[in-house]
């Protein structure tokens, strides 16, 4: 019986994580990952954290939220403000802790009334919350209004980033794979039945929302110290939608899917960098193509497990899917079948 932490599954994940950490560290030391690529890598890490945390709210609990960037900004500003007077790692951690507390508080206050809403109404309400947070920051002295805070000390490093990516994904996975996660999934599946099974749906919805907001604020703090400058408009609706895109792209309900989506989108962004304005068009096309060919997202609702990671079939299928995608198989099939229809 796997009664403690030290079971095969946990250990394998730990070893995989550590191996991945040292691999990237090695690549940085050797010079394969140049500072230029490191920017992309950090982008991927940040959006993996954000995507996974939003997925806990949207994919696992089924509560649509468009205010995620708002909670990110709380973390970013808290860190930036503290870092002004304490420009070192201790300052960053203190800022993170303060941001986390504010996020938890704000998300709780917001969640209790808004999570009674459903579907579109909830989306609009959370969108409003994100905007309120932005406007408040825009009009506060301590946040320096519209010009934002610049010259934030650059404290990010691969070990620091990796630590937070690992911890936030682990916590999200632990959240999902527990009685709390089961309750949340049951709310997504059928809220009425969930309540009839003795689940306090409000409590679990608020819990998931607060958890997501907490992780988002951590990502925000990391964002501040990675990009030197933060402004209120950095955390507007656009950013919330960017995070949402990652969740949808990777598959709602699949935490690992969000991480994979962040990697794929980060790479697409980077590879097409030289094409300047064409980049956004290609990015948009990639999203459209995914929505046509795989509306459930890259991983659907399933998680990448140890079994799938170590199985050759996974990569074969992925490759096959990619080839089908590039050769537009679905269109060819559709064209062929309509052609037949006409003949008749």
């Amino acid at each position: 019986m796997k009664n403690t932490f030290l079971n095969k599954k946990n250990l394998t994940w730990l070893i995989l994580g550590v191996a991945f950490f040292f691999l990237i560290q090695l690549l940085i030391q050797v010079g394969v990952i140049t500072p230029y690529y490191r920017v992309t890598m950090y982008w991927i890490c940040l959006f993996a954290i954000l995507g996974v945390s939003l997925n806990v709210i949207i994919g696992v609990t089924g509560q649509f939220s468009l205010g995620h960037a708002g909670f990110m900004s709380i973390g970013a500003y808290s860190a930036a403000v503290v870092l002004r007077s304490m420009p070192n790692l201790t300052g960053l951690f203190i800022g993170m802790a303060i941001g986390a507390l504010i996020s938890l508080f704000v998300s709780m206050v917001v969640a209790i009334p808004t999570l009674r809403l459903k579907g579109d109404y909830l989306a609009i309400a959370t969108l409003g919350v994100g905007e309120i947070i932005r406007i408040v920051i825009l009009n506060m002295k301590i946040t320096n209004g519209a010009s934002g805070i610049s010259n934030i000390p650059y404290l990010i490093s691969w070990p620091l980033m990796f630590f937070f990516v690992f911890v936030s994904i682990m916590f999200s996975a632990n959240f999902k794979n527990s009685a709390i996660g089961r309750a949340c999934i049951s709310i997504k599946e059928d809220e009425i039945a969930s309540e009839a099974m003795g689940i306090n749906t409000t409590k679990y919805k608020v819990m998931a929302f607060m958890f997501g907001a907490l992780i988002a604020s951590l990502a925000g703090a990391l964002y501040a110290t990675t990009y030197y400058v933060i402004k209120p408009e950095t955390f507007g609706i656009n950013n919330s939608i960017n995070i949402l895109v990652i969740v949808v792209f990777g598959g709602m309900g699949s935490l690992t899917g969000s991480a994979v989506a962040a990697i794929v989108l980060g790479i697409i962004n980077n590879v097409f960098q030289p094409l300047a304005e064409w980049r956004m068009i290609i990015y948009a096309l990639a999203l459209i193509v995914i929505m046509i060919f795989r509306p459930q997202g890259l991983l659907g609702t399933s998680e990448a497990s140890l079994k799938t990671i170590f199985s050759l079939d996974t990569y074969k299928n992925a490759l096959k899917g990619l080839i089908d995608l590039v050769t537009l198989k679905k269109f060819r099939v559709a064209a062929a079948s309509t052609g037949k229809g006409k003949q008749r």
Partner: protein
Amino acid sequence: MSLLKVEHLTKNFGGLSAVSNVSISVEEGELVGLIGPNGAGKTTLFNVLTGVYTPTEGKVLLTKDGKTVELNKMPPYKITHQGVARTFQNIRLFKELSVLDNVKIAMNNEARYGILGALFRSVNFYKSEAAIDVKARQFLAKVHLDELADVKAKNLPYGKQRQLEIARAMATGAKLLFLDEPAAGMNPQETHALTDFIAKIRNEMNLTIVLIEHDMSLVMSICERIFVLDYGKLIAQGSAQEVKNNPRVIEAYLGEEE
């Protein structure tokens, strides 16, 4: 003392009185049927009893461990914690989840760890999860669904879905079950199997059951007492024979004689 006592219960929707002044009582261990023509207010009555609606007037009293609990002011999940569970007219399983997980969700109250225990995977987490897993599997074996434990609920055949919904309601630890049309959409064989299933679980697990049903063969064969609702009012109660020959019931179903 009766297990469930409903006193002068009324539920109005605007000017419509869906349930009006209904008083019933259910004894422990009974299997009671609730029948009536379409729109008589049967499901509304269930919804009021299980907390989905708050009654306009009246009380719902449950006897639990010798004490009387007032259910009419509780939200649905708290009513479930009092040992009252239900199924739905249109199946409401957690479709994308396995049969096992459906049952585990009903047993969620058994988890002996909080959010921190879950995030940091405390010793309690592993103990509790292992215990729930064992309990859920044993429970599935009891209701003969153990072979389907890992099948997604949506992939079960219709009859099994109905059976799982009843099993899931029982898994909450309920002593009193409300079944809303358990045999709806079933063919005669399936209905027969379901009738046996209900009779069996009731005897084995000491349950009290109230069921809404249109299939009279099921109602007449297993229900010891029957309540008849029409236009929100209780028009008759008694054994199957008594109800069958009650002129008011015949009138409700077939209309008045010219």
